[in-house]
């Protein structure tokens, strides 16, 4: 979901609206890594692919309503966040904890290369991220999951670069507190 080549996105979206499957494939190929990464930072591993696909299915279903007032990447982030929120809404906290335990157990069995400590760490970080307020989580995901520079984050979040860095520092502080 980088902000490069917005005009190409616009062209592809226009063609996708007309049912051009090549344009849909191009949009998918171009934005898959960013969506996948964003999802894998907040969703348990076994559901990452499904949720990512559901995001793109949602894109396909609602692309006709995308008017191009915002960048496609911005719209895509909104759809991704919405789908992630929906994922968590469907699960009660109790079920979520059970799911997390199952996930860690399955991962321990299936992947002997990874230590249980690293899995526990990932679960703790995901939980910490999920507890953050939206803007804090967003700035962390933009930097870590999407790899945007602070200038790009500032542009995406309509801030000046100093404010983006300040927001990032406060977000990391909040995350650290959630991890305690």
């Amino acid at each position: 979901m980088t902000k490069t080549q917005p005009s190409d996105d616009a062209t592809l979206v226009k063609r996708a609206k007309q049912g051009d499957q090549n344009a849909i494939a191009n949009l998918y190929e171009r934005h898959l890594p960013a969506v996948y990464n964003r999802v894998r930072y907040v969703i348990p591993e076994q559901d990452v692919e499904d949720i990512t696909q559901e995001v793109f299915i949602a894109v396909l279903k609602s692309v006709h309503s995308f008017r191009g007032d915002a960048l496609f990447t911005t719209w895509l982030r909104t759809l991704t966040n919405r789908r992630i929120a929906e994922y968590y809404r469907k699960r009660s906290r109790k079920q979520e904890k059970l799911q997390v335990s199952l996930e860690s157990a399955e991962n321990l069995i299936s992947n002997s290369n990874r230590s249980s400590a690293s899995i526990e760490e990932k679960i703790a970080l995901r939980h910490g991220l999920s507890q953050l307020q939206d803007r804090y989580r967003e700035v962390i995901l933009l930097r870590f999951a999407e790899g945007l520079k602070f200038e790009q984050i500032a542009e995406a979040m309509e801030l000046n670069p100093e404010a983006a860095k300040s927001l990032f520092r406060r977000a990391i502080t909040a995350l650290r507190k959630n991890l305690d």
Partner: protein
Amino acid sequence: MNKKEMKKNNSLDEQLAVFTDQVLADNAPETQSNNPELQELQNTVIRMKSAFHENTLSDTTAKRMQIDFMVKVKSQQTIPQTSALNRLRTFWGRQEKWQSQRRRQRLGIAISMAALVLLLLVVVPLLDTTGSNQTAASGQTLKPIVLIVFGGLVLLILWTFRPKS
């Protein structure tokens, strides 16, 4: 927040941003800050980087996911059209069937009624009471029977061409 605190925070913001850039570019400095507050934040950045640096999207996974997605795209684009078309066909099929049934019923009733009217036109003069007394008497007896027969015929025709579900 006073000026001194703001300056300190600005400095922290900048240092953490630089540190994060370095960590994510795999150029993590060997030593961390002496400032305990910044050090804690740097540790959190390192934890994030370490936890999620693996399991990134591989080319194979991306390719497989794209193929799966395009299959879904094709089915999404074809199934609704097919089902809509089928629904339309079924609808019109039902309409045509229903209309042809109705047309046949109406035609049958119309022909039967026309036949009855013709029959009445032929029979009624025979029932004319004017003429001989014998004819008049027999006409008087026949009239209700003929009317009952006509009524029965009408009912039979209506029953025969009744709408069938």
